[in-house]
């Protein structure tokens, strides 16, 4: 053991930034969080005693909202690329786009929720599907909302000169969070919507065929 002088107190053992590492660790933990929620939803699939379930999911609408969220992720990397090159205009433009697209996504979700409640009477209290689906997507929506707030604050702070090329790491970290929220949605869209509703839609179609045949028009 030695006592060498001139050791920088702010160096890190790995050379990686503490905050960025914190964000990755947090995302790892959040994987467990969403994994458990999605798992709960899948476990409870098709166990409802009554009420609507996956057949009410609208794939076309959700495809659009998924697309919007994906594009917000693209905007996010473009914003980061902007600030990393010191191009504040590019950064601000794309960050604003992220916030707007994120808000559009939330809008879709609010539309979906109200639609479910109004047309199918689906609330978290209705049945297991209502509970697991709405709580799961609700938590995701909350994550999106937090992300929007965060990016808004960053955008705002950039006008005050508190965010600049020198601390673009702040943007990078917020970006990691934003992309994570996006990939959670990729999983939810694939597993819960597409795979989940496929059987249900199929059943609905079959029912429709049967019904059509029964009334002699099929």
């Amino acid at each position, binding site marked *: 053991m*030695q*006592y060498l002088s001139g050791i920088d107190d702010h160096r890190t053992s790995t050379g990686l930034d503490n905050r960025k590492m914190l964000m990755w660790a947090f995302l790892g933990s959040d994987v467990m969080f969403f994994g458990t929620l999605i798992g709960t939803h899948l476990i409870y699939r098709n166990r409802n*005693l009554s009420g609507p379930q996956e057949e009410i999911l609208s794939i076309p609408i959700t495809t659009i909202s998924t697309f919007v969220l994906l594009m917000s992720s693209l905007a996010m990397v473009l914003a980061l690329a902007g600030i990393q090159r010191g191009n504040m205009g590019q950064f601000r433009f794309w960050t604003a786009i992220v916030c707007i697209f994120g808000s559009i996504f939330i809008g879709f979700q609010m539309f979906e929720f109200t639609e479910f409640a109004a047309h199918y009477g689906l609330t978290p209290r209705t049945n297991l599907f209502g509970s697991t689906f709405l709580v799961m997507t609700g938590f995701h929506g909350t994550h999106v909302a937090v992300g929007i707030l965060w990016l808004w604050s960053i955008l705002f702070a950039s006008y005050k000169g508190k965010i600049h090329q020198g601390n673009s790491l702040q943007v990078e970290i917020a970006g990691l969070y934003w992309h994570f929220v996006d990939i959670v949605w990729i999983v939810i869209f694939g597993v819960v919507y597409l795979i989940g509703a496929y059987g249900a839609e199929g059943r609905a179609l079959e029912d429709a065929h049967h019904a059509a045949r029964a009334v002699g028009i099929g």
Partner: protein
Amino acid sequence: MAANIGILKRPVSTDGVWGWITTVDHKRIGILYGVSAFIFFLVGGIEALLMRVQLAQPDSTFVDAGTFNALFTMHGTTMVFMVVMPAGAAFFNFLVPLMIGARDVAFPRLNALSYWLFIFGAILMNFSFFKAAFPDVGWFGYAPLTTSEYTLSSSTDYWVLGLQIMGVGTTAAGFNFVITILNMRAPGMTLMRMPLFPWMTLIVSFLIIFAFPPLTIALTLLLFDRFFGTNFFDTAGAGADPLLWQHLFWIFGHPEVYILILPAMGIVSDVLPTFSRKPLFGYTTVVFAGAVIAFLGFGVWAHHMFTTGLGAWATAAFAGATMAIGVPTGVKVFNWLATLWGGSIQFKTPLLFALGFISMFMLGGLSGVMHAAVPVDTQQQDTYFIVAHFHYVLFGGSIFGLTAGIYYWFPKMTGRMLSERIGKWHFWLMFIGFNATFMPMHILGVLGMPRRVYTYSVDQNWAGLNLFVSVGAFIIAVSILLLIINIVRSARKGEAAGMNPWAGATLEWAIPSPPPHYNFAVIPTVRSQHPLWDEEANAVEPPPLPAHGEPHMPDPSYWPIVVAFGITMVAGGLLIWQANTWLGLFVIAVSGFIGMRGIYGWVFEPVAEESAERVHAHH
């Protein structure tokens, strides 16, 4: 009041109560954790003693059924979440930065937030006593008993919310220590030169950040069921499956038991070399075994559910996985014995407790392996045999290990020695009392005594053994009193410890006791696993402060406690909401605002710079 003598002085005083409330110093936070854990240990212990009085004789009417159920629920919850975990956190906080050669943890304010969330959550849960009654659903709160259909009283709400808040605090601490240990090590302190205690802290921190989310979800679902009428655990009305709760709880719960034991294993792995005067045998294997235990720990949860009708394949698979954990654990035990082998063993109090740990933990582990044999578990599950198992691992393991840590590092923390004489009395009384209390429980289990019964009848013939057990519990209580006496005595007239009273090998012994707030005047550069042994650095005096003065340390901050308060009071608002919607909403709104304001203030507060405005804003 700002910059004087060339460096930035703290704008807010670190003295007095406010100094402690706003502290972000890892050592002070460690002490806060430690003291709180000890107080809760007395609370949980008194709860245990009350249970033992009730069970000392058949058909006893000392307490009624409801009270007894509340006692074991709060005893279990307290001991697990308010004693062993925070006691572990106390050591993480105080020691890890010292042992890896850092000035503080990676995120000092987050660290303070963790503590305040823990203590507020614990207080909230215990507050149920004044509002409703203590929670009485068992420490693992099986649904559907915990749903509002079967538990009308709001005590379960306190349990859920209290646990949730403590969980958030713990998870935050987990992040902090992962980053601290990965990123804040002194130059030359590679991972494979790190002492075992920081190693186990690292592993435990990973367990925490990956295992707590399932609990968070489980509690959230239950909370939503109870508050908003969702159906996650509504078996009768909605077709929910009660096993969902059990799975989620134990997916958390089994890693949790390793969260409880690994810090103690780390302590023991550092105490043994010091007192056998030789390095840890098989360092790499011991580290690796710890990691394997943690990893396997995620794949065995269903061994708590062998009797729930999992199906043959699943049962067999989980039994096999559970047994597999015995192997890395055995490796650790044997490496500890080999560390003693060939040594020159000094029987100081810390070592005695470490030896108590090895022997008693091993016995508990062996009964754990018996439970893993499923047919045997069908006879043992939910009997006192299980109670014996987990007290052997939790008390014989965690508590003995942590006590070894107290005796070992007390001199470092306070600068004073504890009395060896009282220490040895403490050890032997505790060792005897412990075995008198928990050994007969195996027999009670064999004789079919179920756990969680507030009474039993004469014809069941368990009276004699139960009386014996209860007497044992009081012997433990006396031994704890000796510990208290020892600490008080030492505070008054304890012998001064000096830097390295045990001639230890690790970095924390290279600085004064108690350490200055900046820990190391100059950050050491490490070249081996035993920096103070290998290079006769014992003789090296720590260098004086460099000419430019004290190192730059983070300033105290109000925001952690403000944020913690906001979060806790949102939970409080939810509880009020149950009784009075508008008042509840009001409290939620106000405390939500306080919390948000706290986060905002936090984000824009520099870690360490003068900020006179803040002082104004808050006085």
